């Protein structure tokens, strides 16, 4: 089995509103993949379907080769899951919660957990509810890593974390994933953190899959050009090619998997006459915003 997660033709609606449109993608074993998109794009809906908290209207998901809605106990032991907001049993202290979870996982390794906990400035009997957001995130991360899972799903790991804790989280994830080729699927809105973390990116736009590629390919090939034009141009987005035309103050931008010549060809096809296109240097976050658009 090479793919640890497979989504096939996922469609889902909340009432009459369709939120996922024929989504298909897979996560190969040993890769770290970022599931990205603006608020309301369908990321959490997908995560909920993967964790069997939602039944899709149609389509299916496989985790470790098993249907997501009917995972065996063996499969569940191999999947670590971080709930959005680092939710845990806040009425327990760090020792009580470790004692609780250790009973469910055969490969439980307390050393990893207590190694992370030792970095926190807490007392042994301090309840998790009295910890800061960053400290709670480390407790949640330690509990997941101690399970020794082969697949981890992080639903917005960065929520509420300051840059220090975000960096610590990323460093720990990278070290852990590299150690034994573990697979990780994560979502986050802090795109700049992901540049040195993820191998692949899956990008949603209003429930549609608009990018499914390696990070290097996306960063190198998705380009943005600025241009001026005397005529008024309506902003547009072609979901199939990922080509977006937007207005930016006194000039316009065209973004896509396009060379300069190809960008000119697209504009000419639309009857847009312009002077020379200027290449815009972009970070990953800039490329993400160029693809998904600004509010």
């Amino acid at each position, binding site marked *: 089995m090479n793919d640890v997660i497979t989504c096939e033709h996922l469609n889902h609606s909340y009432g009459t509103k369709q939120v996922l449109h024929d989504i298909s993608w897979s996560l190969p074993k040993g890769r770290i993949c970022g599931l990205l998109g603006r608020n309301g794009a369908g990321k959490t809906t997908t995560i909920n379907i993967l*964790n069997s*908290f939602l*039944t899709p209207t149609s389509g299916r998901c496989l985790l470790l080769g098993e249907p997501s809605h009917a995972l065996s*106990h063996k499969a*569940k032991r191999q999947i670590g899951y971080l709930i959005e907001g680092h939710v845990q049993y806040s009425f*327990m202290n760090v020792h009580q919660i470790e004692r609780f979870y250790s009973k469910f996982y*055969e490969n439980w390794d307390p050393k990893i957990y207590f190694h992370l906990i030792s970095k926190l400035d807490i007392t042994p009997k301090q309840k998790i509810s009295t910890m800061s957001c960053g400290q709670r995130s480390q407790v949640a991360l330690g509990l997941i890593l101690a399970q020794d899972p082969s697949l981890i799903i992080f639903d917005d790991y960065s929520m509420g974390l300051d840059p220090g804790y975000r960096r610590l989280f990323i460093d720990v994830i990278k070290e852990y994933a590299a150690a034994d080729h573990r697979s990780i699927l994560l979502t986050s809105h802090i795109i700049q953190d992901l540049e040195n973390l993820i191998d692949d990116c899956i990008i949603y736009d209003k429930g549609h899959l608009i990018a499914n590629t390696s990070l290097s390919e996306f960063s190198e090939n998705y380009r943005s050009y600025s241009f001026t034009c005397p005529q008024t141009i309506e902003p547009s987005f072609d979901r199939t090619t990922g080509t977006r035309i937007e207005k930016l103050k006194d000039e316009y931008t065209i973004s896509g998997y396009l060379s300069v010549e190809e960008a000119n060809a697209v504009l000419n096809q639309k009857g847009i006459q312009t002077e020379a296109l200027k290449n815009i240097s972009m970070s990953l976050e800039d490329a993400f915003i160029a693809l998904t658009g600004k509010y």
Partner: protein
Amino acid sequence: MNYFKAIFYKEWVKLRIPVGILLLANLAFALYLCIKLRYVGNFNEGEKIWSGWIFKAYLFYKPYTLLPLVSAMIIGFLQYNVEIQNKRIKLVFHLPVGEEKAILQHQIVGLILLCAITLPCYLLIAIYSSFYLPKEFIVSLFYTALPWFFAAINGYIFTELFLLEGNKLYKVFIALLGFSFIRNLLYTEFYNTYLHLLWPIGIITVALFFTPLLASYRFRKGLSQ
């Protein structure tokens, strides 16, 4: 792997203080009733107490009717309110236990704690009664108080159902159904009032015990929104 022990441990950490407080409160009230019986016993002759019991349905323990029910609803609320906040119950469903088994084990823990709170009180009342009243009275006490215990169990189940259900309309239905059913278990005007209904009430209670599985199933499938 003994998952039940782990779940019991978690719920114990969560509820030990409220359980302790409720146990003390229940025992204190039961003791108060016993002291009242002692007072009546010391100032009245034996045949007057008998007469009061047989002809006037003087059930000295009747004030204890609602306390098990209130205790059960408090336990149910404290146990499951934490689980539904921030959808924390996803942690339970993610455990390698099986979702239905996990919910049932949580319920069994809740019922064990409920028994730990209420059964010592019934026992205290029964033992103290035996100093003044015959064995027939103790047996009658058991049959008279059993519907209250069933009411407590159902109070726990309906509280759990109400909290696990996400749909507001269903919540209203659950609240009305629970109130209607439980109310009908508490019309104790005479000893052995429900003697011939105990088996049906018991069977219904056992059937209702499994209804939270439906609410948790609906939550897992996203049907409760």
